[in-house]
């Protein structure tokens, strides 16, 4: 009698539990709310990884969307960050395009790119072109010296890389950490390459770090700030940054190093396994098209990579040895590390 009753009761409790659970499900189901929006069709989509700053990629991608009717999703990040992501995704990436990043970096990851030859290929500056078209160059970024016009006379400003080592610049050079900033490493690498007839890597780095006096700017952007504000007399930076600052009315002037102005271009590439291959090709054509290249020099303070554009010509241009820069990276940075450490210790 009692057992039966307990059984019935257990069933009742089970029923109650079931009912309650059902109600909870009902409740949570009510919380779901579908937006019911249609996503753009696959043939109208493109996913772009970019290492560019927003002010560069936004207008270009916006214009691309406008003209092609293709929806673009942008994932922005640092050059190494994006390239490492592409490597880790290894062809399974949802991304179609790597837009931006120095060609030296792109070359290092060329295995992850799909070769593509643009219609403008013949007109592109061949100096830094990918031998097997893994990437396509996009814009040139000359490395220049800047000086504060209030503190330095035009005649006294450094003209060559060697002059940067002169004693009067000790503690007066604005420079960023090459371990963090890509453009700073490029500059340091140019310096070493430029001096390697007279000095070993170690000697060159030692002499340069002595003039930096252990004081570094926070990043490539702050270099120009530091010079413009008068905190430093001279600096080494990219032409683009300097031009922008100058256009904003800062008291700075640029110098293109004599016989040794290196303009390492950045580029774009189609990622292997791109899901929207056709759109990716359209995008590659777009970034080397007249309008975009024109916009670069006209509005974005950059130089075109198209030989038929006047801005692609740089006086005193010296070819930057990408291979050397890549192979000696460890050595240069090691020297940097040890000598910067010394100067810092001296400071203390």
């Amino acid at each position, binding site marked *: 009698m009692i057992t039966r009753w307990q059984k019935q009761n257990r069933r009742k409790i089970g029923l109650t539990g079931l009912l309650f659970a059902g109600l909870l499900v009902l*409740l949570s189901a009510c919380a779901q709310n579908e937006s019911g929006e249609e996503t*753009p069709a696959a043939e109208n989509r493109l996913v772009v990884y970019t290492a560019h700053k927003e002010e560069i990629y936004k*207008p270009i991608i916006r214009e691309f969307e406008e003209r092609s009717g293709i929806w673009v999703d942008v994932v922005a990040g640092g050059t190494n960050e994006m390239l490492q992501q592409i490597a880790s995704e290894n062809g399974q990436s949802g991304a179609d395009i790597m837009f931006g990043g120095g060609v030296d970096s792109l070359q290092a990851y060329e295995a992850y790119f799909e070769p593509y030859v643009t219609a403008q290929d013949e007109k592109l500056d061949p100096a830094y072109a990918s031998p097997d078209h893994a990437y396509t160059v996009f814009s040139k970024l000359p490395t220049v010296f800047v000086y504060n016009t209030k503190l330095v006379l035009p005649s006294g400003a450094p003209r060559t890389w060697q002059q940067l080592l002169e004693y009067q610049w000790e503690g007066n050079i604005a420079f960023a950490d090459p371990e963090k900033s890509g453009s700073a490493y490029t500059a340091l690498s140019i310096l070493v390459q430029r001096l390697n007839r007279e000095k070993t890597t170690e000697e060159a780095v030692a002499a340069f770090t002595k003039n930096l006096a252990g004081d570094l700017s926070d990043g490539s952007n702050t270099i120009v700030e530091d010079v413009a504000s008068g905190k430093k007399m001279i600096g080494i930076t990219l032409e683009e940054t300097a031009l922008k600052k100058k256009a904003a009315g800062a008291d700075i002037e640029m110098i293109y190093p004599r016989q040794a102005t290196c303009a390492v271009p950045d580029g774009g590439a189609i990622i292997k396994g791109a899901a929207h291959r056709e759109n990716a090709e359209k995008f590659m054509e777009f970034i080397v098209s007249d*309008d975009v290249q024109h916009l670069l020099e006209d*509005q974005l303070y950059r130089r075109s990579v198209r030989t038929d554009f006047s801005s692609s010509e740089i006086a005193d241009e010296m070819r930057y040895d990408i291979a050397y820069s890549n192979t000696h990276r460890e050595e240069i940075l090691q020297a940097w590390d040890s000598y910067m450490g010394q100067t810092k210790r001296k400071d203390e």
Partner: protein
Amino acid sequence: MKRSFKTELFFSFLFIALITLLLSGSFLISAVQQKTEYDYEKKSAQQLQEAEEVLERFFGKTEQIIKGILNDKRITESLHETDSWAVKKAYNRLFSLAVTEVTRDPAVFRVYDESGRCVLSTAEADQMESLPVYWGILKEAMTHPDQVILHNATYEVNSKDAAIYMAQAMVSDDSCIGFVIADISDRKLEEILKEIHAGESEMVVLDEFWEEIYSTETAGQIDLASVLHRQKFYGTQETRKEDFTYYTREIPDRGLHLVIGKRDVFSDSLKRTMVLVLFALAGGALLLSFIVARILSSRLMSPLESLTEAMGKVREGDLSVQMNSSRPDEFGQLARDFDDMTKALDVYVKLRSKQQQELSDSNIAMMQAQLNPHFLYNTLDSIKWIAKANHVPELATLSSSLAKILRASISADIFVPLSDEISLVNYYVDIQRIRFSDKFSFDAEVPMELEDVIVPKLILQPIVENAIVHGLKDREDGYIFLNVYEQDKRLIIDVEDNGCGMDEDMLQTLNERDREKLKGHIGFYNVDTIIRLHYGLNYGLHARNLKEGGVRVTVELPVRRAENMITEDQNAENSGDR
């Protein structure tokens, strides 16, 4: 029993209470939620519609101004004018067209020549920067010269704080001679939309590719525009901000999307709280069920308990127990029935014990009468043999008859066949006839089929004795007739005499069975008592005087035969054991 009953009550109440509570609670919660969502959707849809209306009104007005500027000859002719007077005139026209009552703080209107150089501007301290004609708004305006283009200005080069450009190309003789651009700033959009979102919701204006044009401050903080863009692009819900619901509206003619986000009033935390309250109520219901079950079960149990207690007393033999319940319900009825039952039982048991007492009394009397029966029997046997040896046949008959009567009386049998009982009477009559010197005669008429009827032993002898000793004591020709017959399934034994009869007092006393007054007729009384104890009050003795003189004593007995006797024997033995 008591425990399980209470638990059963408790669970029944709990079940009902919980089901009702949970059902109504859950339905209430979901109803409130759905109502809230519905209201929100309605309100948001209304807000979005209002937003579209105000924007459309503003765009329409701006469009009108652009058209006005385009159609103004002074302005179009001043594009390449260097004469400051002409420029001033053009400005005059421009301001009078641009500043209207609708747009008190109007959009900035600029006029560009065909190369993208800014010629006129209504903005204060304008840099008059040129715009590339191969790019963006001017290119598009050139491609669609017949209409006013609306363009997301956020990512246009040199767009400053412009959010939207509205532009149209000036066409003269099928060639583009310049452009008119209305520059609608973030601030302007904020001013237009402020009243609608009222600062309480997030609002975003997106272009046809769901790229950001304008975000309210709160929407900008969480970068809602890019969240929505990714959501649209990948069609996923994963980026959906918790506690926010978004409603969208498209303005297809302008290629714009309006999105309004509402913080869910019915947030998860509120829902959690409601569910918590529901659980708390369920806890309350649990407690209430427990209390009610306790009260109700004790109300039900207390009469049952006192009934059980009363029954216990009854079991122990106390039949005076009375519950005296005054309850009007079924329990009261039960208690009253119980009271009636115990009363009836009490009466029965008392009667029963009285009967038992009487039976014991007669047994004791019989035992006393049977004192030393074996000695008497043996002595009688000796007398018989001595009488035979001395040829005194009367003495032999006397002693042998007496011995037979004695044997019958000391035998353990309580019941004997009627034939035996009749022979016993015959022995007795033999003795009495010798004693009374044949002053009476005796006849017995027994039908054969009734000879095996079982009767209590020694019930006829006392009656015959009574007839001989009292009825016939003064008569010389006494006659006793014993007639046996069956009537209405009863065994009737009539014992008639032709003696002096009984006086009426005696008859009455006899028939009323008044023991006190029957002292002198103990035999008579005993026979009656024995019959009634064995067979109940419907059987027994009756006596009446006969018209022709004498008395007829009638013995009424049930007709029972040997097979029926077994149980009677046992009953008798059992009653004897007590």
